């Protein structure tokens, strides 16, 4: 068990290291000189050199990478003497555009992204699992085929198309919802809810469709297992057979996928946040892309990768806790 944990953590560290390296190579080696960008227009060669020295760009690649890595864990200092700027760990550098620390920018936006992700996740999990169960119980009947049609549609509609269509329908034409604008929860919970409703729906629909199919397939497959037949042969009622012998094995794999989907969503819903003007991490990334603000893009990428990798590990551990075949090795 401990061995398994150690293995997972070691694997995670390796992946994260590679992600850092990969990201670093792309942004600091392949892309145009950041110093020129920081300096802006009307820049002298001396000024550029000064900035290069401050950012450490004049040093060899591995040194730069090492400074970057240690910055993540221990913080780093930019420049020297009076100009020195202390950047506390985890240091992701400074935005070229606003000169704010990237870490602060991300932390500020985290609550919005988290709200979007949690709401959407609750929605798609409820809708997906429910629809999947209904589908499985009514296999082959009208309800099943109707849900199948819905899921195909849900899977196929690009979320920005859906976002625009929903806004056009609910806000412009029907005027059921206000135009999206940020309202803190404490000020007006109803407005807050209305504001987040569309992003939640948009994000949830595609995933809900996938979860519906997954649930349906798993439940139908589990019901054909021999142990379900054994449970019925024991004379257990349909309630017990379903609850104990069908649902638990059928829904366990969903935990795996849910953890990963949720983690990747936490790292920012780029398109949805942009379309609805929500100031989350996704929007931050999208904005930085248009402004070519590399430290920010890099920070967001690293955060997203970190979340996915950690999510992955949490799922593995959860799975171990749920499935006795993994938890307890076979004895003799």
């Amino acid at each position, binding site marked *: 068990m401990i061995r398994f944990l150690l293995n997972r953590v070691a694997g995670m560290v390796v992946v994260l290291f590679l992600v850092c390296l990969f990201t670093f190579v792309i942004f600091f080696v392949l892309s145009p000189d950041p110093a020129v960008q920081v300096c802006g227009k009307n820049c002298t060669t001396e000024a550029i050199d000064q900035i290069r020295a401050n950012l450490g760009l004049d040093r060899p690649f591995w040194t730069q990478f090492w400074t970057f890595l240690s910055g993540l864990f221990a913080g780093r200092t930019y420049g020297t003497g009076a100009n020195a700027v202390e950047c506390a760990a985890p240091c992701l550098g400074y935005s070229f555009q606003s000169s704010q620390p990237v870490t602060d920018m991300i932390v500020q936006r985290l609550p919005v992204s988290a709200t979007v992700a949690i709401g959407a996740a609750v929605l798609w999990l409820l809708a997906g699992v429910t629809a999947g169960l209904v589908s499985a119980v009514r296999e082959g009947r009208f309800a099943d085929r109707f849900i199948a049609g819905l899921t195909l549609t849900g899977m196929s509609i690009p979320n920005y198309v859906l976002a625009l269509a929903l806004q056009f329908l609910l806000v412009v034409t029907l005027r059921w919802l206000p135009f999206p604008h940020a309202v803190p929860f404490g000020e007006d919970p109803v407005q807050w809810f209305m504001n987040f409703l569309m992003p939640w729906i948009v994000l949830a629909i595609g995933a809900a469709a996938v979860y519906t199919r997954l649930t349906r397939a798993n439940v139908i497959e589990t019901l054909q297992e*021999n*142990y379900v*037949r054994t449970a019925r*042969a*024991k*004379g257990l009622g349909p309630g017990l057979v379903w609850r104990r012998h069908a649902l*638990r094995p059928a829904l366990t794999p969903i935990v795996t996928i849910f953890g990963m989907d949720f983690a990747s969503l936490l790292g920012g819903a780029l398109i949805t946040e942009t379309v609805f003007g929500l100031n989350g991490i996704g929007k931050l990334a999208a904005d930085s892309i248009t402004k070519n603000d590399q430290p920010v893009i890099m920070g967001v990428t690293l955060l997203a990768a970190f979340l996915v990798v950690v999510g992955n590990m949490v799922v593995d551990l959860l799975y171990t806790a749920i499935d006795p075949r993994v938890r*307890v090795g076979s004895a003799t």
Partner: protein
Amino acid sequence: MSEALLRVRGLTVAFPTASGPGEVVKALDLDLDRGGSLGIVGESGSGKSMTSLAIMGLLPKGATRSGSIEFAGTELTALRERAMRAVRGDRIAMVFQDPLSSLNPYYTVGTQIAEAYQAHRRGVTRRQARRVAIAAMERVHIEDAARRVDHYPHQFSGGMRQRVMIAMTLSMEPELIIADEPTTALDVTVQAQILDLLAEIRADTGAGLILITHDLAVVSEVADRIVVMRDGDLVESGTAERIFTDPREPYTRMLLEAVPRIDDEIGLLRTTAGEAES
């Protein structure tokens, strides 16, 4: 003592196919006395497993059942699902072929033995059910039952898993045990142990046994009456001694000739008429 425990008449099981209903069991008659043992023998596709599922009322979706199944004076085909559930597990218990896939990997064997007991005996506490589970496991000679009761199916060997399955049926003291190829997945030495165990239990509890198998040698050691099936039809039935000493149907004779013996002459094995080799 020759009171009838099970009396099946004209049992037919059909599945809908593209060309009308396909009958996998055709007008089958079976009789089993209280405490007796009946062997149903047949090759693959003979409908022997479907027969057992039909008696249990556990046919797969889409299958239809007709005919009469009278168990200890009760007509099972007339029972509602709820009443049938009270019979299943409590009065008729079943042991399946593959013990690994027949046990739920997510629960300890103790839980799985106890839940049957709890389902049929109202007001049983968890602790009582657990004690019953341990007792049942001890009865099938699983050593250290008090500890093993908390283990999961994958922690047992094949033979031990089948013992767990049998313990599960035992906890209810059923009047009839149906064992569907209980030893097919097991090694020959383990098979011998499981067959001994079944015999021991029958002697102790007086339960009736229906043994479904493709193995004539196995059935000859266990059953006092035998039914031979082929393609859903009943070919021949009678006492074990009669079937083995004086088989009347050509199919039964062929089957008996085809079995390789460990203690008989060595020579060309007889096969189905017309298909014999050179």
